[in-house]
């Protein structure tokens, strides 16, 4: 049996989460794609004569940040070009994109779990409109027309589907955590085309490659790659020719099918390109500011910390840039374990409920330190965190001092409550003295209830109450 080596290259389209589109002032984003058709299409997006493109600086910054995090080189002569083809999803009948040599970023790699995966280049381009073919005709929705895409083109560096998935997961993590893309696959914000060929030795890559398109989940990507490698090996073993084709994956029957053969369709070959003279030639090297470099540098460090966590912890953190940022900032004050524990147990529920994180990491660290030194109860800590997340009218230090002061004032009231309780709960006290120490929880509950009835906005110091109650019960 002969040995075969698959060579796999990827083209990944990320939708950048900028405020506006790549070349026009129309709003950009996943909400916009899902909204009523053609609501977010201005005259430029519709290809109206006389309109001119204006390159979005935010999109440039985002793609540069991504490139720096992936160790790419900023190109000092980066040109926007027009790629011509006639189809109504491109209202100008050309797409504003970049050719490989003139792409804004060159080279780089995705850091994988076992090895790095080399990139060829990263370029910027505008997305096409959506279209639906119905029996009433061709229906067009230009909300997506002109959304900014970063196209990440890898070298044919992958040899199996596991490596591909590893790279895609890492890339998705990086893009989300850098906040350059939301990467929601179901909305088409993270699209992958896979080029596959099979060789008999390590040094020659077969020109007969097939391209898998329109894959919308990691699961399907993996399955489709495995099937396609198998199909190509079988064809070679049967001495059949592999025709370079564009393939689709049918998840219902778990099979790949040929959408079109590349040679037979001349329309898809030899695009005409021309430089778009309306747009400036970019010196991406100059556009890479110190602040971008610093951001990327810090990110790489933070990302390496993420790698030290276990799988579940990584999953929790890597899917949300805000929580991740928060996590790495907490590391300035706390250990990795403490940071993760607090973030996951206390902050994530608040974030999930409110959708925002307003409490600063510095204030949070202060609260946690007070807790660790047993100067705050868990309830008090939670209350301070919740309050700070809602408004910054008071500082963490103010709230801590207030609580600690009130605690001594409340002391008198608590003693009064305990006295009353001892009168009423003779049975429970007896039971305690008989050795049922757990009954103290019941007694504390009673006191807490009365206390919160009188001081609804205050938290009773559970630790102190516990101590005091014990003292009373043993004195009696």
């Amino acid at each position: 049996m002969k040995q075969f080596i698959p060579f796999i290259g990827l083209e990944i389209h990320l939708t950048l989460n900028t405020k506006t589109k790549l070349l026009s002032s129309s709003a950009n984003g996943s909400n916009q794609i899902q909204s009523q058709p053609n609501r977010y299409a201005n005259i430029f997006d519709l290809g109206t004569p006389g309109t001119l493109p204006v390159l979005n600086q935010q999109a440039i910054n985002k793609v540069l940040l991504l490139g720096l995090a992936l160790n790419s080189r900023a190109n000092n002569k980066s040109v926007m070009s027009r790629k011509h083809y006639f189809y109504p999803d491109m209202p100008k009948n050309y797409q504003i994109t970049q050719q490989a040599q003139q792409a804004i970023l060159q080279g780089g790699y995705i850091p994988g779990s076992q090895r790095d995966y080399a990139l060829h280049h990263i370029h910027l381009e505008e997305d096409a409109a959506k279209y639906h073919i119905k029996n009433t005709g061709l229906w067009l929705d230009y909300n997506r027309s002109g959304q900014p895409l970063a196209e990440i083109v890898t070298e044919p560096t992958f040899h199996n589907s596991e490596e591909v998935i590893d790279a895609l997961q890492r890339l998705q993590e990086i893009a989300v955590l850098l906040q350059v893309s939301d990467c929601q696959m179901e909305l088409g914000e993270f699209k992958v085309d896979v080029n596959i060929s099979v060789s008999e030795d390590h040094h020659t890559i077969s020109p007969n490659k097939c391209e898998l398109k329109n894959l919308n989940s990691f699961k399907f990507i993996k399955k489709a790659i495995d099937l396609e490698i198998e199909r190509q090996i079988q064809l070679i073993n049967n001495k059949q020719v592999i025709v370079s084709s564009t393939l689709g994956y049918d998840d219902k029957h778990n099979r790949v099918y040929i959408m079109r053969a590349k040679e037979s369709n001349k329309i898809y070959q030899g695009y005409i390109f021309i430089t778009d003279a309306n747009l400036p030639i970019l010196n991406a090297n100059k556009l890479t500011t110190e602040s971008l470099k610093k951001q990327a540098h810090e990110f790489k460090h933070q990302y390496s910390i993420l790698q030290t966590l276990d799988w579940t912890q990584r999953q929790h953190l890597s899917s949300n840039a805000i929580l991740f940022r928060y996590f790495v900032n907490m590391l300035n004050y706390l250990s990795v374990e403490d940071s993760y524990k607090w973030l996951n147990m206390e902050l994530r529920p608040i974030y999930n409920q409110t959708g925002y994180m307003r409490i600063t990491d510095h204030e949070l660290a202060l609260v946690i330190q007070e807790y660790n030194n047993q100067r705050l109860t868990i309830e008090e800590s939670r209350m301070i965190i919740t309050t700070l997340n809602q408004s910054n009218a008071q500082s963490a230090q103010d709230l801590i001092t207030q609580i600690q002061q009130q605690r001594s004032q409340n002391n008198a009231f608590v003693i009064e409550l305990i006295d009353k309780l001892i009168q009423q709960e003779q049975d429970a006290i007896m039971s305690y003295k008989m050795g049922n120490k757990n009954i103290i929880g019941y007694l504390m509950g009673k006191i807490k209830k009365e206390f919160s009835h009188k001081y609804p906005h205050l938290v009773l110091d559970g630790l102190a109450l516990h101590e005091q109650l014990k003292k009373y019960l043993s004195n009696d």
Partner: protein
Amino acid sequence: MYTLFEHLRILIKTKGAKYVWDWYQEQIIKHDKNLKAFTQINEQYHDIETSYPLSGIPIAYKDNICTNNLYTTCGSLLLDKYQAGYNAHVVQRLEDAGLILIGKTNLNEFAMGSDTNNDLIGQSKHNLNIKYGCGGSSGGSAVAVASNMAPVALGTDTGGSVRHPAHLCGIVGVKPTYGTVSRYGIVSYGCSLDQVGVLTHYVQDAAEILNIISGLDPCDQTTKALPSDFFTKQLTQSVSNLKVGVDKKLLASLPYVQQNIFTEVIQYLQTQNSVIVDISLPDLDKCLACYYAIAFSEGFSNLTRFDGVNFGHNRLDAVNIEQVYELNRSLFYDRTKLLIIAGAYFLQTKLGNKTIFSSAQSYRRSLCNKMHAIYKNVDCILLPSLDRVASQNNDSFLEDKYTVLANLTGEPAITIPISKIDNMPYGIQFMAPRYQDALMLQIAFNCQNKFNLTEIMIQ
């Protein structure tokens, strides 16, 4: 010098803007049926804010400049009855300054060509002899101004489209530095070559308009901020001690009568203490070849959007998308079709290892360097704008050779009427380094002062 605008300002003050409007409307009724300068006329006068310097002055726009009012046809059957729905940046600026749109002027389809002919309304005629061609592609604008149907018109100049008809019709035509005036709302022909130009009777009037329409427009990334008197700051200063470059060999190749006109201009400049410096311009025939390779390639690209899908004419009888393209795009004027095919050819065909287009781009860069070297020794250049006067001769690809240089290098250029040959006007051209528009206008202003041919008709 007493200019038309100065005269109109007084008339508007004494007799009212409506009086001026009515006078121009009357001229249009009298002449336009024969001359076909306009694709559409705005008959509706509206009151305007009269406190600005140019308030109440009527203006015509070449019909590839988008206007909210009236159609923007580009002289094309594809855009017959096309409403742009917005004002080009220049139109908005002028509207804000109180000028009133009087009509849209005829042109070659999408400004491609120089005989102002198209399938939509036909050919514009020369105002002095309707058997003669008026030049183009901004021929409608030139005829409208020359025959006093409008005191000023805007055109677009991709390879001489403002200067060519201005020369033939005996008026002033300016193409400012590429990037001084926003192209937002101008239907593109060659994005790297196109520039809005102004057609007037007087240099000073054109400079005033340029001050209004120039400067930064966030919608056109090739523009930048300019001072508000950028074009007029040194207009009336004398031209003493200016170094004027002249390619004597080039002038010697002109017919004798034309040479004489240049001799007169040179003598005048010398009496003003300007210094004439002999220079050697780049090979103009090569420039022309380079120009067509770039203009047609960019033109090919810019015309792909005209498919009838989102705007303009749409054939509803198409059965599929290929037929939509076929039926709509076959409405292009024959010359435009030729240009599209040539452009696609230039972009795909390789000479050696480069496409014809990219060879032309390389040549273009070397041209910029050559011109830069020339400007080390001179302040501006005097050259022909065209080597003939109006005649029955029409469109020829070859006669743009004096005008395309300024478009390839992005430099400002102006043609001004200086004399007559066989009773037909003859103009000369000045060019200057990029962003030296004020200096170029200064020398043109002085020359026009000396050789004025213009008479103010409205009284």
